[in-house]
């Protein structure tokens, strides 16, 4: 087999195997999300007050007060509407629903909560006044009575959703960073596969046919690589501004697709220049096989190792470039991606809230790290000239 020796070498490295397992795990998550494990609605659903820290970490009294204020506000607004029952039924924070009691009873409970609320003067700085903290506990207990107590699976699900806290719109950071795995894999795989195929075909054809084909391909990639890559990406994104697909991922795919094929094209061209001198290619030529067939059947399969390595390099670059472009306001617009999460975290970090940037970075870090190690091991196994 073509790869059996490389596979054996690859499997000898424990780190490489672990990283491969890690990548497979991410892939499984991606497929799971694709099949509906976490839906797009889940990633946008409000599951609690904003900026709740993860793992139920303690919060400052002032923030706890604000959170209760937010919850009471939900009920107050609902009870002011004409169709109280319906409005109340619409209230939901993740799995939490309004307590299953008559409206009059609920109004009574709300009034009780507001009574305590008014006693805690809004203008006072709770963080500095410990004597008010027991009162705050009472207020929270009163507010909790408005909700139906969570049991069994619902309670577990709610805890999971709040595991990494919530962002500024009260959306689950955990679900968003996990849903972003799908977006990242989607971008990485589509861009990686397309670029490697285009690059390989162009590079192999350039090297194999030589002459004007070679000149044309070289001109094409020299041209596209003679603008710094981030600048070119920005200009290509500019191209789509105001068009129908602006909000989708299409501008990103197009920009990456037009720039990322250059790497594999260069490497494959160099490799094919070497391969075409080899005896077996000469033999095939002497046997009178068609040149296009030789290229497809004998030459390209022998650069498949280059394609594999290039794919994983591009995959990493695409994921990282997504974050940078999104940060600059040119990338993903409307999907929960790591880039969006990290960009949103700009303001949160200033206020000392690290859950969103931390979760997005950690989930992304593990994938990119696994891919980096995987690529290194792949190069070790496949390329005898690679220096470990």
């Amino acid at each position, binding site marked *: 087999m073509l790869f059996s020796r490389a596979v054996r070498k690859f499997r000898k490295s424990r780190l490489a195997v672990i990283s491969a397992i890690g990548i497979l795990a991410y892939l499984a998550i991606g497929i799971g999300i694709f099949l509906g494990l976490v839906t797009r609605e889940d990633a946008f659903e409000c599951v609690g007050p904003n900026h709740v820290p993860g793992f139920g970490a303690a919060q400052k009294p002032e923030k706890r007060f604000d959170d209760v204020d937010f919850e009471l506000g939900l009920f107050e607004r609902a009870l002011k509407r004409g169709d109280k029952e319906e409005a109340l039924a619409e209230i939901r924070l993740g799995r939490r629903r309004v307590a299953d009691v008559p409206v009059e009873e609920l109004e009574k409970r709300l009034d009780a909560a507001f009574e305590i609320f008014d006693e805690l003067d809004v203008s006072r700085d709770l963080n500095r006044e410990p004597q008010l903290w027991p009162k705050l506990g009472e207020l929270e207990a009163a507010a909790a009575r408005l909700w139906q107590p969570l049991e069994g699976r619902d309670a577990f699900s709610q805890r999971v959703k709040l595991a990494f806290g919530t962002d500024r719109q009260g959306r689950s950071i955990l679900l968003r960073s996990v849903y972003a795995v799908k977006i990242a894999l989607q971008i990485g795989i589509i861009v990686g596969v397309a670029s490697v195929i285009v690059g390989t075909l162009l590079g192999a054809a350039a090297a194999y046919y030589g002459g004007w084909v070679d000149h044309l391909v070289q*001109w*094409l990639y*020299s*041209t*596209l690589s*003679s*603008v*710094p890559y*981030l*600048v070119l990406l*920005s*200009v*290509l*994104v*500019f*191209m*789509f*501004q*105001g*068009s129908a697909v602006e909000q989708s991922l299409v501008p990103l795919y197009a920009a990456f697709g037009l720039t990322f094929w250059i790497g594999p094209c260069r490497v494959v061209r160099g490799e094919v220049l070497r391969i075409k001198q080899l005896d077996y290619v000469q033999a095939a030529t002497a046997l009178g096989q068609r040149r296009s067939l030789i290229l497809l059947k004998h030459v390209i399969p022998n650069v498949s190792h280059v394609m594999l390595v290039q794919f994983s390099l591009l995959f990493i670059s695409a994921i*990282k470039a997504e*974050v*940078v472009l999104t*940060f*600059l*306001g*040119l990338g993903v617009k409307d999907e929960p991606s*790591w*880039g969006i999460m*990290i*960009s949103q*975290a*700009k303001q949160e*970090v*200033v206020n000392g809230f690290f859950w969103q*940037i931390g979760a997005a*970075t950690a989930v*992304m*870090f593990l994938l*990119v*790290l696994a891919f*980096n*190690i995987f690529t*290194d091991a792949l190069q070790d196994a496949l390329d005898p000239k690679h*220096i470990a």
Partner: protein
Amino acid sequence: MWQYVVRKLLWNIPVYLGILLVVMVALRVNDPVWARLGKNATQEQYEQTKEDLGLHESFLRQYGRLLNGFDLDRYSWDKHGRTVRQELSQAVWPSLAIAGPALVLTTLVALLTALLAAFRRGRPLDRWLMAGAVVGMSISYVVYVILGQYFGAYKLNEWVGREIFAIQGYDRSQPLWWVQYCLLPVLINAALAVGYDARFYRAVIVEESTRDHVRTARAKGLSERRVWLKHVLRNAMISVITHVMITLPFLVAGQIVIEVYFGIPGMGSTLITAILGKDFPIVQGFTAVFAALFIVTNIATDVLYAVVDPRVRLQ
């Protein structure tokens, strides 16, 4: 040698023509005038703006004007009364004030790390350094910038009790303005580039150190120091220099994220602001200049390479 230089120059002419063409087409696929004015603009406004931009002329004429001086004397859309040239000459200096020192610092630290690792190849120090580089590379660029600003500016200032590094901005009238506004971006920039460069330099040095002539040098009894300095490093420097040369054009453009985040009015942030504001003259002019810079450094790199390595000329 001269033949080689001339050949390189000739080869880059179509490349230059090509890239300006790509830029022009990319910027015109989606009518820049409508994109800017929005759908509610009147036909007259449209015609007027189109004429201001010179977009009413034929494509070839516009192409010719771009080739002949990048169309730099056109007025920017957002910054009233300022030409692209003025914007450009103003934006170059802040970019260089960060990019230059960052390049020097990155190269020095990366080379030192690479040398240490290569010298101790396969030993724990090497493994830790390279593991650190891989881990560092796996964290997004943007995260370094955000956290770097938070801990380097906010927290440090809070801790010391007075402002050491500015959180944002660029003001040359301050005494010690460079330390205040540029040093932190430079440090962050260096921190995130060192990983990549150190890995590359280490690979180069290790490759050189396994060459036959190095073994011969050892066999004839040269001291370890002499072997490393004269036989390994000297050859490795060729790759190091070319690597630095290749990154030169990125210096001007590659700081985009840092410039934007730290509010430094350099070329990168000017370009991004222009793209977001659909300021067509600036986008076109800046991109064309970037391309020209890139091609000039490319030629310089090739020539330098041919000077230090005679084999290149023969290809």
